[in-house]
């Protein structure tokens, strides 16, 4: 399939979920030029979701996180290069690495991801203070967790809460479990046994959050409230409306306590900082490419330079509905971007990126699934099921349009919502509030123009309780999720 219009070589900076998928999809699409995947991490491409879930609980080695075994890259002629790219020379079309080597590109894909934000307070560098982004971070954290007695989590975003759920669940000496898929069960069972035998739980967990609820930028109030209740029931303490003023050591360089903005001190031998991420835009910025809360790309994921694309966590791209530039942080987004770019490079598409976002998070035995994006701010919430129960969905509307659906332990709702949103089948707040409404039912029998129902008949309809409209898009502060930036 290689023809003269295809670039002779593709260099990908970053071999995370997006970088790996770009290389894999290029080969799947028949691209025969040289593919170089450059990574600052000393590891085969691996997946991150288990890092805050099953991987933390078990003894699984890093190989179980790998997206593909080493033989795959050899067989597919994908060159894996270890090193940090320090400079893009757009005129010469080369990238330079820290060790002085350089690579020529016909097309360059920036898949540099994001780095965790750290606390800008005294003591932030003490031992025992962790962030969680890489396999290395997770390995260190699980070693620390095996002996920790008191953990303080700073920031109630997805990473903080997933970590909290593992920390409450895991017995001090964790049993072996596997990383992906099967390991989830281990977390869940551990969670249950913790609930039954409180004395057996791994450690005491306090979550400190500046806002008044968890996941505030990522989910609606009913969903956030559910997770507050869930974590409290499992013995986690929340301190809302609190910031961290300082971290104090034990005199030997290890963290011993966390000082809050109200002056209180929480004893801690492990601190996880989960206050969101910063996209890694520095290479692009230094090369003079536009950067606005992420590497700015158009709807085809091209930067200002026709030879350079940016994808995944680092890329601010126009949202399908609103046109707003924003980043999303999810596996689906990185993979979807990668595939589009690979198709474009091999000439099989010129289409704009328009994949429907979806995301999941596992905490204790609860599965949260989100589809769509609430980036414009919703004005109506309709809850299907009882929001005080273990299973419900929240539909977020702006005017008559469905923006996003959050499902708590309702996978069938999530999947139906994905179909509805992907196919553009109209659902109004009135439809959703009608007695007997189900997303699955609406998929097979949509009710267009059914506007005469009284909202509230049989359903909870919450007008504009917590619109996200006032959340200024500043991706640098976004919690790790597909939440509004």
């Amino acid at each position, binding site marked *: 399939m290689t023809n003269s219009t295809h670039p002779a070589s593709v260099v990908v900076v970053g071999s995370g979920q997006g970088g790996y998928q770009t290389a894999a999809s290029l080969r799947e699409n028949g691209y025969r030029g040289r593919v170089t995947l450059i990574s600052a991490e000393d590891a085969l491409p691996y*997946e991150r*979701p*288990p890092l805050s879930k099953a991987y933390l609980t078990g003894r699984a080695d890093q190989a179980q996180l*790998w*997206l*593909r*075994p080493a*033989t*795959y890259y050899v*067989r597919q002629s994908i060159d894996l290069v270890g090193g940090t790219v320090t400079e893009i020379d757009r005129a010469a079309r080369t990238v330079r690495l820290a060790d002085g080597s350089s690579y020529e590109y016909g097309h360059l894909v920036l898949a540099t991801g994001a780095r965790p934000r750290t606390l800008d307070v005294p003591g932030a560098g003490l031992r025992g203070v962790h962030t969680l982004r890489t396999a290395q971070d997770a390995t260190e954290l699980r070693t620390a967790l095996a002996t920790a007695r008191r953990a303080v989590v700073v920031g109630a975003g997805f990473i903080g809460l997933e970590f909290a759920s593992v920390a409450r669940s895991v017995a001090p000496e964790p049993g072996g479990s*596997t990383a*992906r*898929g*099967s390991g*989830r069960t281990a977390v869940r069972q551990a969670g249950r046994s913790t609930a039954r035998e409180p004395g057996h739980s791994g450690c005491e967990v306090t979550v400190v959050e500046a806002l008044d609820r968890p996941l505030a930028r990522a989910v609606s109030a009913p969903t956030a409230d559910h997770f507050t209740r869930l974590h409290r029931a499992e013995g986690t303490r929340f301190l809302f409306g609190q910031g961290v003023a300082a971290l104090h050591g034990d005199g030997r360089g290890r963290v011993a306590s966390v000082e809050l903005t109200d002056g209180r001190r929480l004893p801690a031998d492990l601190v996880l900082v989960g206050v969101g991420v910063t996209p890694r835009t520095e290479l692009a910025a230094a090369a003079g490419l536009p950067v606005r809360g992420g590497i700015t790309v158009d709807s085809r994921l091209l930067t200002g330079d026709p030879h350079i694309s940016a994808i995944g966590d680092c890329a601010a791209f126009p949202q399908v509905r609103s046109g707003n530039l924003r980043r999303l942080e999810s*596996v*689906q987004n990185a*993979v979807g971007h990668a*595939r589009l770019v690979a198709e474009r490079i091999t000439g099989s598409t010129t289409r704009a990126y328009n994949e429907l976002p*979806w995301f*999941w998070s596992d905490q204790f035995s609860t599965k949260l*699934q989100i589809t769509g994006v609430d980036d414009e701010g919703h004005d109506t919430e309709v809850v299907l099921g009882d929001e005080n129960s273990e299973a419900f969905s929240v539909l977020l509307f702006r005017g008559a349009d469905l923006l996003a659906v959050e499902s708590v332990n309702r*996978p*069938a709702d999530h*999947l139906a919502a*994905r*179909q509805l949103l992907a196919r553009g089948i109209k659902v109004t707040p009135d439809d959703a509030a009608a007695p007997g409404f189900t997303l699955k039912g609406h998929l097979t029998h949509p009710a267009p123009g059914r506007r005469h129902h009284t909202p509230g008949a049989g359903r909870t309809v919450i007008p504009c309780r917590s619109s996200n409209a006032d959340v200024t898009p500043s991706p640098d502060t976004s919690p790790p999720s597909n939440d509004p930036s």
Partner: protein
Amino acid sequence: MPKITYVAVDGTERTIDVALGTSVMRGAVFNDIDGIVAQCGGHAQCATCHVYVDETNLDQVEPARPDEDDMLGFTACPRRPNSRLSCQLKVTSDMDGLIVHLPERQY
């Protein structure tokens, strides 16, 4: 370890010893077998690990649970009665000799 055979669309077969407790999906991915994408890493979220269980082996696998059943509505190739998500097929000793057929595409 149970032996599982993966049959590609072109008829190529590979038989692998897959460890108990992992999944049919992981057996393929770890052994570098093409045709299973497994985008979500085994969370029953993506339907890119679709396989057809050989008709002769259907009694060797547990029936799909509701969330897998729903997700099977999302496969890129047609869903058939023997369609499964390989990430949800946990490898047990009963699976020795299992044959799965890979679909033409996963997305």
